[in-house]
């Protein structure tokens, strides 16, 4: 949208860090407000899209927009600090300036999900791409049937978005199944203990008129897909997102392709059917 009006497609928008939330010891969420008030008003995106975030002096890193487009006036991104850029982003404090280019890529076809039950399955740091959609669904709750969220991490400390998890748990119109494994959490742990695919199998959401959205490390996805299949989900009913190393986000720089599929343009959202047709290059 706004990008085409920009002559220089590589020039980021400037945003101000409005809030810093530590999700886990190494995962942080930044809430960003566009410095240009008009842009702040007009910036739109769809759940599933990603952006290039600049730490000036270090470069750009790619993550999804983790907040929901229904919640206007800001965007959020969540990241683990592992590389040069993310370590620099982690040093940012409230009031600091950060760059954002986007939104890029395709998105979840949420309109096609209206009237359906939704099952969200996520592991570890991979909740952000689903969180945007979960919040989006909750903000128009009456358009969806049952909402089930199965989310797991290694320990309770590794669960991200603890504030939302609490909120979802308290809602009567959401079924949240949270799990840890290997666990080792204290007696106050009120969730399950076990791997996400196993817990999903036990939770056994119905596949009828349902869309499943899966995000997690490749190994979790690998074990989750057969569970969904067993529950009766077809590959067209299952969605996931891919992340490959990117630089431009614009379909030019040439590194994010999986076979002839450009994750930045053709993705990052794919159905299980599309994923299965791809060569193993992600």
């Amino acid at each position, binding site marked *: 949208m706004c990008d085409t009006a920009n002559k*220089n497609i590589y020039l980021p928008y400037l945003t101000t860090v409005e809030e810093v939330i530590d999700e886990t010891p190494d995962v942080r969420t930044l809430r960003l407000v566009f410095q240009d008030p008009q842009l702040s008003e007009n910036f739109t995106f769809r759940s599933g899209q990603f952006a290039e975030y600049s730490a000036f002096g270090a*470069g750009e890193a790619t993550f999804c927009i983790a907040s929901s487009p229904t919640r206007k006036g800001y965007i959020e991104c969540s990241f683990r600090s592992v590389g040069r850029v993310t370590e620099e982003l982690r040093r940012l404090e409230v009031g600091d300036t950060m760059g954002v280019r986007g939104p890029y890529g395709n998105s979840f076809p949420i309109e096609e999900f209206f009237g359906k039950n939704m099952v969200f399955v996520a592991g570890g740091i991979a909740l952000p791409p689903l969180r945007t959609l979960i919040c989006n669904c909750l903000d128009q709750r009456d358009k969806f049937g049952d909402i089930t969220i199965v989310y797991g991490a290694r320990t309770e400390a590794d669960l991200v978005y603890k504030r939302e998890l609490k909120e979802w748990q308290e809602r009567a119109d959401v079924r949240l199944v949270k799990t840890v494994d290997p666990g080792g959490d204290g007696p106050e742990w009120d969730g399950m203990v076990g791997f996400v695919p196993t817990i999903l199998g036990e939770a056994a959401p119905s596949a009828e008129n349902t869309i499943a959205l899966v995000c997690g490390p490749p190994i979790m996805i690998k074990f989750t897909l057969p569970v969904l299949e067993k529950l009766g989900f077809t590959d067209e009913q299952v969605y996931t997102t891919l992340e490959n190393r990117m630089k431009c986000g614009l379909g030019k720089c040439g*590194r994010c392709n999986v076979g002839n599929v450009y994750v930045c343009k053709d993705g990052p959202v794919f159905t299980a059917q599309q994923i299965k047709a791809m060569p193993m290059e992600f």
Partner: protein
Amino acid sequence: MQKYISQQNFTALLDALIKQGTRVVAPKLNAGTVLYEPLAAAGEMVADQLPRRSGKEAFFPLCEEIMSYEKTGQQVALTDIDPARFPETVLIGVRPCDAAAIPVLDAVFSWDYKDEFFLERRRKTTVVGLACTTADDACFCTAVGISPAETRGSDLFLSPLVGGGYRCESYSDKGEALINSHSALFAEPSGAEALPLAEPQTEKFDLKKVKAWLDEHFEDPAWDSIATRCVGCGACAFVCPACHCFDIVDEGTEKKGKRRKSWDACGFWKFTHHASGHNPRDQQPKRYRNRIMHKFKYYDDKFGQTLCTGCGRCIRLCPVGIDIAAIVEEISKKEV
């Protein structure tokens, strides 16, 4: 429009262009190596050698600034690049393999998002192609469907004539404008014969068949035997007229610096390496496979063409003698 220009007037044309402030880029000797470089005088042009690197850098430089940043307290000021600063250019003496690669790059930089760094330079450049009269055994333009007199990508095309001078044929408004701007230097076509064209020795590849094999053989033992010897440098990509992958990096101090776009190569292990340590192309044959796939399948899937114009530079310069023409020929003979 077809015209004739004598060798003497050709020199005069270049000098006149240089004098009027046009950037004239042509094959030129640069510290011992022939490259497409801006000329200071017509005499610097080396017409009889294929430059070591291709002509793509006239539009897509090795490295260029795409913005700069400066921090003051919590604020950051960005300075954009004004495309108006790209000079009017005549890119002259371009080999058909290099010129034919320009439309191939156009597709990448103009589909969907428009890369004005490339496109503005493109708009401001008149491409003058030059027919090839010599070829070595690394040349294989004819094998990928391009001729030593291929005019695709050229606004004006020069064919050297027996006895000197060139026949000039314009293929666009820009080409015509170049002739018209210095019309006194051009004459009506003479009856002189063109010098015989180069004759690359490779047989024409059945590119449809090559693609059909690639469509089905992402996993194949052939990749190991083709590319185990690959040492993972970027020489092939950097000298290629069609390769266009790039990196974006910030360089400078924490307070102030520039963001730059610079050539990158799928042969480097770092190219697809995630910060987490995961690398989808963790072995050299997988990286080399991407090179072949991109050139003869992926690009074709997207834009309906081949991402190779047969210049042969990667063959001449590969440190370990990897010969893309031999590889593609071998693939074309495989059972689909």
